[in-house]
């Protein structure tokens, strides 16, 4: 069972039958909506909706098993934002009597010189919403990959035309090869995990410095073998006359169906609706959002 198992699987579902464009639009809509809101409750609804789409696509829950990593990211965001949030300075128009509430101190009161390093509730909340954004996007992204055959994606990308311009096939190839390599890398990753565990490496300990070293034992072998196989791939490509100037043809045809019109329209309406809600009415936006004046 690969730990990271995001690879196309055959299934007859509504989502599988959709045109790749529709699914790409879905990803974009999720990005837009997740960026529009920063109130945890709203983001939670977005996440629920994504889970709904995932179950519509009949994606087995185990495909999302590696998502536990996200729990760490969320925790990291909560702590760092909780500590450093107030140093952002510019928070737009907050009421004058607004006061930061301290959740607890990282350096507790009973320790010498304590209490120090307060964790601010508002900051933690903001960090939580940042974490939820990451969760939403990480949940949505695999849906495209899991339900779209890689060659359909290639086909779709090569169909895009703006005037007489189209995406160079080299670029499309890089893009789709990346998808193609997800299962390979994921298998490498698992075998490396097994090998390191077998000689006593304990993944998931609590000592952060030790964990960095432990993670190195995973990433060095995986990266090395990925780079080596990428090199092999270039050799294989050259021998097959990659880049020869011909018109490409495809065995698979992807069809744009009536459902695609409906779904695309719906996605656009929802995304625009959310943008309006957030920007014009301030719904789903925390009152103490840091202002970024770049």
């Amino acid at each position, binding site marked *: *069972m690969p730990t990271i198992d995001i690879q196309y699987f055959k299934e007859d579902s509504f989502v599988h039958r959709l045109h790749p464009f529709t699914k790409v639009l879905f990803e974009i809509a999720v990005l837009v909506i997740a960026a529009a809101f920063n109130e945890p409750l709203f983001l939670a609804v977005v996440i629920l909706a994504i889970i709904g789409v995932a179950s519509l696509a009949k994606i087995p829950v*185990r495909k999302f098993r590696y998502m536990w990593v996200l729990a760490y990211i969320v925790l990291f965001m909560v702590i760092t934002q909780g500590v450093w949030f107030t140093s952002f300075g510019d928070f737009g128009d907050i009421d004058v009597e607004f006061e930061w509430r301290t959740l607890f101190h990282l350096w507790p009161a009973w320790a010498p010189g304590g209490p120090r390093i307060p964790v601010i509730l508002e900051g933690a909340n903001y960090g939580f919403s940042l974490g939820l954004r990451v969760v939403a996007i990480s949940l949505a992204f695999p849906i495209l990959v899991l339900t779209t055959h890689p060659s359909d994606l290639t086909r779709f990308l090569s169909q895009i035309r703006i005037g007489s311009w189209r995406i160079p096939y080299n670029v499309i190839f890089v893009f789709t090869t990346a998808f193609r390599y997800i299962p390979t890398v994921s298998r*490498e990753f698992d*075998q*490396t995990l*097994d*090998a*390191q*565990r*077998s*000689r*006593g*490496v*304990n993944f998931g300990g609590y000592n952060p410095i030790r964990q960095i070293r432990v993670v*190195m*034992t*995973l990433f*060095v*072998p995986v990266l*090395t*073998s990925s780079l080596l196989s990428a090199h092999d791939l270039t050799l294989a490509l050259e021998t097959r006359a990659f880049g020869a100037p011909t018109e490409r043809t495809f065995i698979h045809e992807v069809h744009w169906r009536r459902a695609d019109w409906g779904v695309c329209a719906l996605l656009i309406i929802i995304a625009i609706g959310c943008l309006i809600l957030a920007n014009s009415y301030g719904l789903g936006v925390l009152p103490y959002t840091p202002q970024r004046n770049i």
Partner: protein
Amino acid sequence: MASEAIIETRDLSYSYPGGISALSSVNLEIRQGEFVAIIGSNGSGKTTLVKHFNGLLKPSQGHVMVDGLDTRTTRVSELSRIVGFVFQNPDHQIFAYSVWEEASFGLKLHKLDAETVEQQTTEALQAVSLDELRDRHPRALSRGQRQRLATASILALRTPVLVLDEPTTGQDFLSRRQIMALAVELHADGRTVLMVTHDMALVAEYATRVIVMKDGAAVCDASPNEVFKQDEVLKSTGLDLPPVAKIARGLRAYGFSDTPLTQTELVENLLTAIRS
């Protein structure tokens, strides 16, 4: 001592997530000091079986006991002190920037003092004749040398049990002999050796016991001699007899009934048969 079970499977069944059944009701008892060869065609469940011996996989049903510990409730890092596991592809584990660093990594994890680490690592590197190259970057080694380095990093742990999953595949004759000689030496040293292999000649020559896997079941579990007598079993699993046994089989029509395991044995038996 030789009769004590160090690994025991009771009614072990395993299905991979997604429902692929890879092992069904395997009952085995590996005793201390055995040299066990595990053979079977591709996909018969050999790797799945041995991955249960250090807890990398946990049984779907039944139990696996390693030195009295239930693998279900014991961490892999703890079992790694009892069972050393050498994988087929060394590139999945090599991450350090020097041979010595790589070989000593497991020992350092076990928090041994510097002197013991130095001593056991040196000894392990000597065993695979890589001691000279201890400061070399692992990437600057040949594939065969990397395989031996991976083996050394497990040897250094001095585990009482050693599992080798197809250690000789893709190796030239010399390295194959070298790895086998090493396994034999470890076995003579009193360690329990389990080896997954397709190399029947090696099985015949070195194993004290052969387990034949077929479709996730252990269909045959006996001494090499007895296993090679049952050609039907072997044929049904798609395995071939070792060359020596094949020759003896060809001589059956002429009244030669032995199942020799090594070349010397074959020659001796033939000579006695001819003389008498």
